[in-house]
């Protein structure tokens, strides 16, 4: 009943009844086509340009970036990073196929567990579907192999991103997401580590989400 009352009040305000079929079809067409609007020029660069801009913005937003040649270099990079943060050599890894292919056996002192992060876990490695050069933003969709908790609970959030997956603008990133199927339950756009400016409007890092964000950019195609 309430639904009809609200819709009815809106239609009275618009001085019309329900939209005629042809106009409904036009609006349905707009939704189906989901046209993009003006997108900023600044991210529209060649691959190296996009990687450089993405890196610049991640760092400006207090994240860090490492450039790696391949997945084989990930274990060493993780061990070094955790040591530099004085963090325990333990890592929860999202069971994404690309991350399962990492040769963690080469880092025998690193305690690796594939699965979902719990509050007891300090460091976590996830996989980004895309990076957006426009603002240094990561696109992290949820799914059976990419738990949302892994983006949120650890102190140290490490993310693998292929250079070829760094796109110019958010719209490009969502085009890639649309190719993967229907909208996932949860899609996060992440720009830097967690922070708050609620105390005297002064920025402090390490609010409720990760205290640190470290992006491992892998050379090669997406």
């Amino acid at each position: 009943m309430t639904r009809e009352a609200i819709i009815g009040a809106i239609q009275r305000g618009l001085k019309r009844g329900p939209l005629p079929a042809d106009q409904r079809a036009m609006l349905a067409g707009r939704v189906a086509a989901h046209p993009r609007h003006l997108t900023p020029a600044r991210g529209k660069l060649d691959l190296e340009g996009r990687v450089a801009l993405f890196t610049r913005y991640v760092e400006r937003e207090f994240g860090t970036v490492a450039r790696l040649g391949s997945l084989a270099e990930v274990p060493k990079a993780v061990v070094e990073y955790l040591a530099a943060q004085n963090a325990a050599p333990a890592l929860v890894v999202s069971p994404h196929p690309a991350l399962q292919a990492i040769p963690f056996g080469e880092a025998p002192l690193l305690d690796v567990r594939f699965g979902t992060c719990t509050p007891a876990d300090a460091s976590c490695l996830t996989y980004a579907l895309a990076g957006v050069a426009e603002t240094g933003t990561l696109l992290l969709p949820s799914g059976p192999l990419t738990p949302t908790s892994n983006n949120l609970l650890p102190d140290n959030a490490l993310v693998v991103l292929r250079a070829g997956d760094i796109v110019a603008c958010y719209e490009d990133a969502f085009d890639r997401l649309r190719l993967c199927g229907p909208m996932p339950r949860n899609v996060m756009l992440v720009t830097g580590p967690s922070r708050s400016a609620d105390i005297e409007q002064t920025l402090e890092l390490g609010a409720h989400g990760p205290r640190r964000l470290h992006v491992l950019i892998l050379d090669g195609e997406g």
Partner: protein
Amino acid sequence: MDQTSAGFKESAVTAMANAGLQRALARAKPHFAHRRQAAVDALPEFEALREVAKDIKNHAIANLDYYLETYAASVEAAGGVVHWCSTAEDARQAVLGICHAAGARTVTKGKSMVTEEIHLNDFLEANGITPVETDLGEYILQLRHEPPSHIIAPAFHLNREDWEASFRLAHTDLPADRVFRERRDLLTEARGKLREKFLAADVGITGANFLIAETGSSVIVTNEGNGDLTQTLPRVHVVVTSIEKVVPTIEDTLSLLRVLARSATGQDMSVYTTFSTGPARAGDPDGPGEYHVVLLDNGRSGMVGTEFQDMLRCIRCAACMNHCPVYGLVGGHAYGSTYPGPMGAVLTPMLTGIEAAGNLPNASTFCGKCESVCPVKIPLPNLMRHWREREFERHFTPPAMRYGLAFWAFFAKRPALYRIGTRLAALAMGWAGRKKGRFGWLPLAGGWTKARDFPAPEGDTFFALYSKGRK
């Protein structure tokens, strides 16, 4: 809180005498304005994007019935439930019903102005459910039993010592002799306290910045990550939101996001922008088992088709209050309404009635700064003017002001008389003030001259000078 809007003048005077508040305002205000300007300057397309944002919201509102129906169908297709609510009471009952069905004892909350609008926390507490605010600013306000004073920086009015005092009072299980050296120590303590709450909550309540008809997604924007923990960890996620937040597609949302954070905090993008679509899917290792949307009208549908329809474009960035000279002097609490500042002055009378909120549209100098920074170009001064007209028409204006206006109108409608009258007044005042050149006090203008002198007229009136110059 809404009922104190009528006392705006008194609250404003008190606020201006409050040294702590004045210190907080002086610190924060230029900060917001400078950061916004820097972000705008760094994006050459920003002005064009404001026009895009305005068009998107106008299109959504012109077809609001269609997009709401489409949105609801998409939410249901994703396994979510939509609760349509005409009034604040409907929305409170809907939330309570969901909490009861889930057997909830505690709920965590992400920051949501609509839950402030419907006074949800008090209602849940009265019904035996403990709400826990998880946004850092909202958390301390809950400890202090205060409403937010700003729509995106709720604890805008507090200084660091207020935080310390409240934390010491509330967190009695921690050592009393602990030292807060930096702001970060406060943040770390709150993080520790709230981690326990996130994990213990049965229900998580968030607001929404946008609702997407295409996908049935609710979108939240935070810097802390508290909203994400709130909507990911508990068994049930409830989105409390309002009908004007719906937009057609993801692409429309992305265009609005480009102007939102820049206008709000001066960030290019907030840290977490999250799209939630329904409950956990088969095979998902985490996420809530239930997903509800409490979709509130509360007077908004009545704005469609009126001179106030433009207000439905508002995306709650707070740029208008961040740049408002009146807000900058009195802060948010003086307004006595859930939504302060220029956007609040326009929206509040719609939600609570002009009788209760009539003072708010008068709390403006009409300098126009709010409209010039609004990312969706809402003509805020014009809308406040419409409220003033309605207030006058309905005789809510005080008698002295009505007589004064009637007196002025009599002459304004008779130009010849007006010219003679002003010329005589100018001559008389020029003669009376010929020694000092100014007046420390004038009859009927005591309120004006109390704070500054009135300069004595020199020579002729503007009309007379203009006529001479033209010849």
